[in-house]
């Protein structure tokens, strides 16, 4: 009985049969101990190299051959569990050793995770270059109260002033959003598109990143004629039955305008001041701060700074909007139906009463549905975005 090829006294026939698996042959070649061949090798005087392929005899001759048993390996103890626990121990001991490289700043963070009014710190403002004003010879002396000093030829805007004014502006945006106001974010310089669209998306406001068509507020009957509008209730659900009013009413005017570059949008800010629309503007040291109602002294050239300002105001608008919806669910509404809508509803109610009286006299006719009976209603505007882009951004928001 052949137990193992390493046993002595193997016949040459059995040896050849066992040499067939190439794996074992290689193992033998690599082992440092020469394989004892025994006396039986005397019949085979040609010493073959151990890794030479022995030609396989035809299978009919090996039919009677005993199948080769699997070579028994020394039974190594299975240490998988111990190894696993040792690795865990090592990891616990050494896992915290070494330096950890952290990415503290990524340029896209301001869009992926926009900071809100609570996140406004001096460090954030300084890192986003909010303190860098213009060349000292370009300054507007009205901004002297915002300026901390001069460095490298430019005016340095006080970070405390920037933070305080930014927080105040965020509060304004939040309250306007809470009272259902229509907010417009304007940034018409190249690169500001993403900033204003993101701010408008967060606060359910409108945005403008192309040229402001002059007269869109003061001459809106002509310029925005035929734009679609929509009535919404306090839960921002559309209301039916105001088509006659919507066809006749004047186009909407924003209730708050946030302008990232006041210098290029003087016409817009002037129109807002003519119709008493409050404005928020980023005022650099060369800008006239009286153009806007609420100035934010900051660097208006750095997109990084404007992204921070825009996302803070957008977050503020978002907070106000959510607060308004929550309070509406509880039954408290902080705004009133606009006067023209109230008057329209009054007329509608009178007409309905007249119709009811007629109906009482001549029963059998259909009665009109009365929308005015539904309590507080809210007018809202929705316009088609294809025709006038700047008005197109007056999107899904509510009127005064």
């Amino acid at each position, binding site marked *: 009985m052949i137990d193992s090829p390493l046993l002595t006294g193997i016949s040459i026939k059995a040896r050849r049969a066992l040499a067939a698996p190439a794996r074992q042959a290689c193992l033998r070649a690599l082992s440092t101990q020469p394989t004892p061949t025994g006396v039986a090798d005397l019949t085979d005087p040609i010493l073959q190299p151990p890794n030479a392929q022995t030609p396989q005899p035809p299978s009919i001759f090996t039919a009677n051959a005993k199948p080769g048993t699997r070579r028994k390996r020394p039974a190594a103890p299975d240490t998988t569990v111990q190894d696993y626990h040792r690795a865990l121990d090592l990891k616990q001991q050494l896992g915290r050793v070494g330096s950890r490289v952290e990415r503290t700043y990524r340029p896209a963070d301001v869009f992926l995770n926009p900071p809100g009014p609570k996140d406004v710190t001096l460090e954030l403002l300084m890192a986003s270059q909010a303190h860098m004003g213009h060349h000292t010879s370009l300054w507007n002396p009205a901004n002297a109260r915002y300026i901390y000093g001069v460095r490298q030829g430019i005016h340095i805007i006080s970070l405390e002033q920037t933070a305080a004014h930014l927080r105040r502006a965020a509060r304004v945006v939040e309250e306007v959003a809470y009272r259902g106001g229509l907010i417009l974010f304007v940034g018409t310089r190249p690169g500001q598109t993403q900033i204003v669209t993101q701010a408008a998306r967060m606060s359910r406001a409108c945005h403008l990143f192309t040229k402001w068509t002059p007269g869109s507020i003061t001459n809106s009957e002509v310029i925005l004629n035929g734009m679609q509008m929509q009535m919404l209730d306090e839960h921002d659900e559309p209301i039916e039955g105001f088509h006659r009013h919507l066809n006749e009413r004047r186009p909407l005017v924003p209730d708050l305008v946030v302008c990232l570059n006041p210098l290029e949008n003087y016409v817009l800010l002037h129109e807002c001041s003519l119709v008493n629309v409050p404005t928020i503007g980023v005022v650099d040291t060369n800008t006239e701060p009286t153009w806007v109602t609420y100035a934010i002294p900051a660097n208006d050239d*750095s997109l990084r700074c404007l992204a921070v300002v825009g996302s803070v105001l957008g977050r503020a608008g978002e907070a106000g909007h959510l607060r308004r919806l929550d309070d509406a669910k509880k039954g408290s509404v902080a705004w009133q139906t606009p006067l023209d809508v109230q008057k329209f509803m009054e007329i509608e109610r009178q007409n309905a009463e007249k119709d009811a009286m007629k109906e009482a006299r001549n029963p059998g006719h259909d009665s009109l549905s009365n929308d005015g009976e539904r309590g507080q209603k809210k007018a809202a505007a929705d316009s088609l975005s294809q025709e006038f882009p700047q008005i197109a951004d007056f999107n899904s928001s509510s009127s005064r």
Partner: protein
Amino acid sequence: MAQRSVSPGAALLRSSRMFSMPAPIPPPPGDYSSATKHYSPTATINYPTHLSVTTPSSSRIVGDWGFKRPFPLKTTLKTTYPLVRVRQVDSTEHVTDFQSSSDHTITLQKFQELNMPISVPPEHADDKYKQAQTPVSVFEEEGDVTAIDSQMAVDLENKRWKFKGPWLAGLTDGQFNEYLEKTVRTRRPEFRAYLKGLLAKEMTEDQGRVAREAGETAPAAVNAGDVTETQLVGYLRRLRTDRMELFRLVGRFLDLAPIAGDLKLRHLGSLEPNKATHLTRASPYGATGPPITHPSAGLSYLRTRNFGDNHPVYGPQKHHPPVKTRVLMPRSSGTGNFDVVLGIAGFVAETPYGDLTFNIKTIKGRNQTDMGRALHSLELEKYGGGKVYGRPTATTIDSNGRVRINVTDASKESETIHKEMLGEEGGEVYEKALKSNEPPEVPLNPRGHMRQRRSPLLQGSSESYGWTL
């Protein structure tokens, strides 16, 4: 000193990176003779004047360099080295004035790769060779002293580099007159008192010497107040005949930077007999003026270059790896350029006199070797021009802020080894040695194929215990 308390925003601003940018230093004055020379306003100046600024690539693709406004992407993205120097954060034209600063920054990097210490310049122009052979670091304690008292100022006057007064040889006429009017004239009585003190000391020594020779006790020391006006005038007359001594005293009084003392033999005749005259070595900064910064200029803080390089095959090397130098102007008697001009690590090199390959002017070696061709002809067909290997020996920085690197011949062995390391042509030593060990493709003995061919490399390994198949 207690720091003034400032607002949190101000404290934050003061620790910001923009505020920590150093103010630009004045540019080098330029060559006064440039009116008659070709002068390029865009040429790289001797030393950088502005901080070099860079930004990570994630911020660079949006143009954010940390300044007032995003930089234009067209110029800042298509550059090999994202390095700028900002000359104006904002200008009246509403633009940030910046330009690439890769010239100075990469030159500094290349210089630091040379591992060169900065050494003291030679005292005379004739000592260039000696200075290149045995350079002395500018960080040696005896020369690198700035906190000194009056006695040390005298002792180290020919070694130190910092002086309160100007370097007279470098002043223009107007500057010199202004210096005389404003600083020197007002100190006349002070100087006379200084001389009286010196004369009193000298008279005391003379009295003591006479008394000692006569075998008497020394009389009381002469005070400066005892010196009469007549004696002082006599002393002044004596000094006027001795220019070296007079400049030495004036220089000590005003702490002037030293001037190259050209001690010639003819001055020996005017020396007064029986008077001790100190002949000291000239200051290294006398010939070209003291440096405008520390003599190392912050380029290198190494003290020496004496460390050994190791080669993975050949072991420790005697020389550092040679450096490729660019032939900026080949030697050509036709253009009047009798010495070859080399550039090393971005600087124009100084080739010392002596028996160097660079200085061989015979016709014989001109077209024989690659080096000869590179040194004698403008090789336009080569990428980047002709280049030869050189060995930098010493580096000094002159009073204009120029970096002067001495370059001599590279040793042939180190050049070959370096070429082999880089895989360049002409450095196939090890390959050749291996090939010589192999049998030739056409066997010398056609019947020798019966013999076992042995590979020189496969001699068995530690695992096979000498078993070869």
